[in-house]
C-alpha cells in the first residue's frame, strides 16, 4: 500500500472519529460538565425572624429560624441587625441588646450547650455596625443537611424606635476557626407603630364522622342500580331473604379532618355468643357466615354453596369504593369489578387517606345471600365502623 493511500485512510479515520466525538459532545451536554470544577451550594434557606411585639421600642422575643444546608459543625451563629439587607451595615436607631440575652430551646444544631451573648450596646444608627447577637455552641457537632435551626432569644432584645420601618438581620454560621460556613442571609422584620394588636390562635386537630344510609336503586362499586335494600345511618333492614337472591345495602361515610396524618376507617363485627363470632346469628346455633374473601385478598361475590345448615349456607360481606387504600394493594376492592371481604371482630381498613381532607365521602357496601338450606329464623348482627386519625 502506498503512503498516499495510507494517508488517505488515516485522514478518513480521523474525520470519522472527529465526527463521532463532535456528535457525542453535542448530544450529551452533561459530559461537558465533567471539565468544570463542581462548587458546593451554600447559603441558608427559609430564614425568618419572628418577633412577639412589633411596637417601636418594645422589648420582645426574636425567634430565628433557618435551614442550614451544611453538616459542618457550627461553633457560633451571629445575628447582626442592620437597616439594609446587604452592603454596609448601619445599626437600627434605638435598638437595645441586653448583656446576656436569654435563650429558649435551641433546636436543629448538632452540638450541645448554647451561650447567648450580645454586643451590649445601644445601637445608635449610622456609623454603628455593632448591633449583634451571638450564639456560641460549647460542644459543636455535625447536624443533618437540611436541618431546620431554631434559635429563640426570649429576652434581651428591644426593638428599634423608628416606626413603620423594615429592618434586617444578617444571619451567619461560623465554624471553630471563625470561618463562615453559610451566610450571611438577611431576614426582615418590621417595626410598625407605638400600638399593636396581640393575635393568638391555636388550631387543634379535629375530626368529623358522618354516616348516611343509601336508598335502594343506588349504584355501588361499578354496578348500576345494584343497591336493593335501603339502609339508614345505623341499620340495614334486609327484610325477608330469598334463597339465591343476594341483597346489597350501602352507606356513605364522610370524613372531614385536619389531622396531619389523615385518617383510617375500619370495619368489623361485634363478638357474640356463638363460636367463631359469625356476623349474624339467630338463637344459639343458627348463623350466617362471614364471606370467604378477606380484607387483604377480597374476591368477587360468590353464592353460598354449603350443604349442611349453618356451614356456608349464608354469607355476609362488605366492600368499599375506596381505590386508594393505605395498606396492601390500594385498589383491591375496586379493581376488576367489586370485590368483597368477610368481616370479623378485628377491624380491617375500608377507607383511608394519608392527608388531611376537607370533605371525603366514600361508599361502603354490605352484601348478604343465603341458599335453600339456611335455617329459617330472625338473624341479627352488629357491624362497627371505626374512624380514627392516622398517626
Amino acid at each position, binding site marked *: 500500500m502506498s503512503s498516499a493511500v495510507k494517508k488517505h485512510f488515516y485522514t478518513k479515520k480521523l474525520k470519522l472519529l472527529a465526527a463521532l466525538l463532535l456528535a457525542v459532545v453535542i448530544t*450529551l451536554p452533561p459530559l461537558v460538565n465533567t471539565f468544570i470544577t463542581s462548587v458546593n451550594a451554600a447559603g441558608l434557606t427559609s430564614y425568618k425572624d419572628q418577633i412577639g411585639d412589633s411596637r417601636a421600642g418594645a422589648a420582645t422575643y426574636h425567634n430565628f429560624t433557618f435551614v442550614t444546608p451544611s453538616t459542618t459543625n457550627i461553633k457560633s451563629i451571629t445575628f447582626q441587625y442592620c437597616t439594609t439587607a446587604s452592603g454596609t451595615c448601619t445599626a437600627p436607631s434605638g435598638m437595645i441588646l441586653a448583656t446576656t440575652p436569654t435563650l429558649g430551646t435551641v433546636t436543629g444544631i448538632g452540638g450541645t450547650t448554647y451561650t447567648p451573648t450580645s454586643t451590649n450596646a445601644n445601637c445608635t444608627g449610622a456609623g454603628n455596625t455593632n448591633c449583634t447577637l451571638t450564639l456560641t455552641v460549647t460542644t459543636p457537632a455535625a447536624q443533618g443537611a437540611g436541618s431546620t435551626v431554631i434559635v429563640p432569644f426570649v429576652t434581651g432584645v428591644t426593638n428599634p424606635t423608628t416606626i413603620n420601618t423594615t429592618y434586617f438581620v444578617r444571619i451567619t454560621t461560623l465554624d471553630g476557626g471563625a470561618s463562615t460556613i453559610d451566610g450571611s442571609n438577611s431576614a426582615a422584620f418590621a417595626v410598625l407603630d407605638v400600638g399593636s394588636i396581640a393575635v393568638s390562635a391555636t388550631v387543634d386537630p379535629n375530626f368529623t364522622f358522618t354516616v348516611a344510609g343509601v336508598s335502594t336503586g343506588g349504584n355501588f362499586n361499578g354496578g348500576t342500580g345494584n343497591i336493593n335494600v335501603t339502609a339508614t345511618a345505623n341499620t340495614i333492614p334486609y327484610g325477608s331473604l330469598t334463597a339465591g337472591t343476594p341483597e346489597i345495602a350501602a352507606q356513605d361515610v364522610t370524613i372531614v379532618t385536619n389531622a396531619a396524618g389523615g385518617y383510617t376507617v375500619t370495619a368489623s363485627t361485634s363478638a357474640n355468643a356463638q363460636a367463631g363470632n359469625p356476623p349474624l346469628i339467630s338463637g344459639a346455633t343458627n348463623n350466617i357466615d362471614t364471606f370467604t374473601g378477606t380484607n387483604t385478598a377480597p374476591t368477587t361475590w360468590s353464592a353460598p354453596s354449603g350443604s349442611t345448615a349453618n356451614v356456608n349456607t349464608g354469607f355476609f360481606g362488605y366492600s368499599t369504593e375506596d381505590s386508594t387504600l393505605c395498606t396492601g394493594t390500594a385498589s383491591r376492592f375496586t379493581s376488576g369489578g367489586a370485590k368483597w371481604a368477610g368481616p370479623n371482630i378485628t377491624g380491617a381498613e375500608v377507607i383511608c387517606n394519608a392527608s388531611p381532607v376537607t370533605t371525603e365521602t366514600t361508599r361502603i357496601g354490605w352484601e348478604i345471600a343465603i341458599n335453600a338450606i339456611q335455617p329459617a329464623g330472625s338473624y341479627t348482627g352488629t357491624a362497627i365502623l371505626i374512624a380514627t386519625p392516622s*398517626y
Partner: protein
Amino acid sequence: MGIFNNINILLNTKQWVKIYLIFFIILFLSAFQMIPPVYAETNTSPQSFNVSPAIINVPLSPGKKYSYAITITNLSNKPLLLQASLKDFQTTGEEGDYLLEDTHTNPLLSWLTLSKDTLILNPHEKKKINLMINTPKNIPLGGYYGILFFEPVLQNMDSGKTRIIPQVGILLLANIGVPDPNAKQADILTFTTGLFHQTNSFPLLLRVKNISLHFFTAKPILTISPLISFKPTPVSPMYLDDRIIFQDKVRRWEEMITLPDNHPNIYKVNLAVSTGNGNYSTESTYLVVFPFANALLLLLLCIVIAFLIKRRKRLKGAFKALFHNT
C-alpha cells in the same frame, strides 16, 4: 249507532268537553306510571358528629395531674346519645395500622378519668367533657398510648336488622420524661432510591426504626444535589410527611420523588430524619439520571451518519448513476 245517538241526546257539548278533559288528564297521569321512579340516593337523616382535638399528644411528668377539654358536636338534626370508652391499641405493620384491643394493658388507660362517660347532645349542640390524667409518682420513662372512643348508643332494635355503629377514636399519646439528647433515637433500616433512572423521577423507599424509649414524630428531609454542575445552585430540601413512630416500631415512606431539574446528572441524595429536639439520623446515597434509551438511539444515529460519511463517494456515484439512467 242507536246507543251513541242516545248518549248524544243525554250529553250536551260542555259535558263532552269535560269528559275529554278528564280522559286526557288520566292519560297524562298514567304516562308517569310508565317512567321508572327516581330515588334520592342518600337518606336525609345522616348521623354526624365532630370531636376536637382528635389527637392529644402531651408530655407528662410523674406524680402530676393534667386536664384536657374535649369538645363534641352533634352535627345531625336528631338528638345524639354518645358513650365514651377507652381501648388499648397495638401498632401493626409499617404503614400506621391499628390493632384495637379490649384489654387495658397500657398503663395510660388506668391514669385517665372522664368528667362523664355518656352525654346527650341536642341537634347541633356542642358540649365539652374533661379528660383528666393523674400520673403515678413512680412510673418508668417512655411512651404510653391509648384511644378514647365515642359511639352513639342505639335504641333497641327489632331482630332481623343489622346494626351499624359508627365510632370515632381520639388518639391519646403521652411521653413520660425527655429522651437523652445525646442518645440515638432512630435507625434508618432502608434508604433506597435505585441507581440508574431514565427520567428525573425515582422511587424512594425509606424505613426508620424507633430505638428509643419514647415515641417521636419523624420528619425525613431530602437534600438532592447534582455532582456535576456549571454553577453553584441553591439546593432546596424536600420535606416528607411527618409520621409518629412508636417504641421499637418501624415506619415506612414509599413514594415517587421528582427532582427539581431534569438534566442528566449524577446526584447525591442526603437524607436527614429529624426525630425532634435537634436529633437527626442521616444517610446518603447516589443516583444517576440519564436517558439511556435516547442516548443509545443517538449513538446509533451517529454510527449511521459516520457510515454515510465514510461511504459518501460510493453513494454519490450510485445517485449519479441513478439520475443519469433516469
